[in-house]
């Protein structure tokens, strides 16, 4: 399937990197950034850029692949259910974002809130979870980029990974979250071109709606919009997982403090609602594959590039690669920014050097970016399996959801209640996962729901027995700007 020469691919990657870097450099050329600009973009992002950055961050490499896989595996109803679940993940934030912004107006990370609300143990749990999540996002995005570039050209998988890592590391080092938000819009333009140019082209080449209608009788239950299997295998699990999905993801929380207070809730609603049509459109690649007989040997995880290579001529294939690269970069730079912000705010400034200058913190932030990018790139080149980490983080999301959200409102939760309920919920969730692994196809969902149920019950019971009430008004003074 090598349809692009090495020179063309090198030009594409180089051009993409140079444009992103020049954009960030040009925008920041007049004044030097402080650590506050680097971590929360000066807290002055408006509705347009705020919505665009949430959309682009949430459309990561897997968002281009997984909806299509759901269409290929579960049929015509698959992309709808998958997209609905993903949209809920961002929309679910909207009621909480303004509230946490009011509680800690000078915050940077969700771990920082937990640290101020509780103690160093609870803080440590959130730090570990946020760092591991950021690493995982980087790892997956780099892996997808490696597979894509090496599939379409003769550039090796390993070299592809390092080229892509260098691209988004280079401009992220300049101005952190500010660079991420600025480039996110340009990357959203590129991603939108898939939905507005490439996908319609594939629809028309595949014969459009009449071809799908005529093929529906041949694909059985997969041709049914109201398929019960699609609902049970995708709809319900993704919808429920959606409730927990983004809660531990620092990239989504970080933007709470970057976007202007009056626009923040609307941005999360637009970001989530906007994600739905993007995902639905990408999902049609899987439906097209199903009705035109394009088959995948690995269960559909590669169906998007297969369909692209089947229908697209060379020029549009390059456009397609550019768009996947945009999706990879938009989430990759956000993960780099999230990781460095947690390192500076929650580890360096909090525990190592409380009086560090802005310049010193910028050095630490940039060094941590380089460290995690290199680590994730190396992990991706070795193709190591991170299934255990994925499982662990999935169950942790379920265990953290209630204690974290209740911490925003319920003044009777204390540090022991928070930490114990997360740990007990995590243990119960992992136990349930492994118990049902060979018994039920819904073992993953059972693990997450058990973690959620047990942590909720233990947190509620402990907090009801606690008579001491926390004073939420004290939080604003405990969380300061990094330059203070």
């Amino acid at each position, binding site marked *: 399937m090598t349809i692009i020469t090495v020179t063309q691919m090198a030009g594409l990657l180089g051009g993409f990197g140079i444009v992103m870097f020049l954009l960030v450099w040009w925008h920041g050329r007049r004044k030097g950034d402080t650590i506050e600009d680097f971590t929360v973009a000066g807290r002055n992002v*408006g*509705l*347009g*850029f705020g*919505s*665009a950055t949430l*959309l682009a961050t949430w459309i990561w490499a897997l968002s281009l692949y997984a909806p299509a896989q759901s269409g290929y595996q579960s049929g*015509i109803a698959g992309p*709808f259910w998958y997209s609905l679940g993903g949209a809920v993940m961002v929309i679910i934030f909207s009621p909480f974002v303004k509230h946490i912004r009011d509680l800690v107006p000078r915050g940077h990370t969700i771990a920082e809130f937990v640290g101020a609300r509780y103690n160093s143990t609870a803080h440590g749990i959130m730090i570990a979870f946020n760092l591991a999540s950021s690493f995982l996002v980087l790892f997956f995005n780099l892996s997808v980029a490696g597979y894509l570039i090496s599939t379409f050209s003769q550039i090796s998988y390993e070299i592809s990974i390092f080229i892509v890592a260098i691209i988004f590391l280079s401009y992220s080092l300049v101005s952190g979250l500010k660079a991420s938000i600025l480039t996110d*819009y340009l990357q*959203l*333009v590129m991603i*939108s071109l898939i*939905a*507005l140019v490439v*996908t*319609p082209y594939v*629809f028309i080449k595949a014969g*459009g*709606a*009449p071809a*799908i*209608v005529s093929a*529906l009788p041949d694909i059985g239950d997969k041709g049914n*919009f109201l398929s019960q299997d699609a609902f049970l295998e995708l709809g319900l699990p993704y919808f429920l997982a959606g409730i927990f999905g983004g809660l531990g993801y620092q990239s989504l929380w970080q933007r709470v403090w970057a976007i202007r207070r009056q626009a923040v809730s609307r941005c999360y609603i*637009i970001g989530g*609602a*906007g994600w*739905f*049509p*993007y995902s*639905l*459109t990408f*999902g*049609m690649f899987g439906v097209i594959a199903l009705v035109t007989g394009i088959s995948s040997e690995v269960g559909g995880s590669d169906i998007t590039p297969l369909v692209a290579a089947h229908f697209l001529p060379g020029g549009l294939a390059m456009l397609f690669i550019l768009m996947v690269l945009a999706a990879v970069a938009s989430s990759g730079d956000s993960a780099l920014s999230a990781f460095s912000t947690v390192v500076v705010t929650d580890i360096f400034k909090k525990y190592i050097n409380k009086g560090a200058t802005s310049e010193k913190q910028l050095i630490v932030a940039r060094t941590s970016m380089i460290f995690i990018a290199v680590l994730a790139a190396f992990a991706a080149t070795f193709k190591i399996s991170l299934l255990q980490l994925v499982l662990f983080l999935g169950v942790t999301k379920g265990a953290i959801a209630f204690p974290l959200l209740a911490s925003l409102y319920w003044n009777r939760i204390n540090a022991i209640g928070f930490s114990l309920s997360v740990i007990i919920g995590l243990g119960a969730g992992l136990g349930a996962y492994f118990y049902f692994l060979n018994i039920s196809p819904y073992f993953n969902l059972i693990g997450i729901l058990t973690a959620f149920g047990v942590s909720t019950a233990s947190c509620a019971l402990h907090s009801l027995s606690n008579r001491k009430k926390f004073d939420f008004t004290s939080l604003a003074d405990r969380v300061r700007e990094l330059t203070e």
Partner: protein
Amino acid sequence: MLALVTFYLWVGPVLVALIFGYVTYHIYKGYREKPKH
């Protein structure tokens, strides 16, 4: 059935165009309202 499938196939790109236009409009509006130094 044809109408339903046609709608399902094309509703995504149409909504993407609307969302993208909305976001772009607000970025443009933000730049216009930004005080000039």
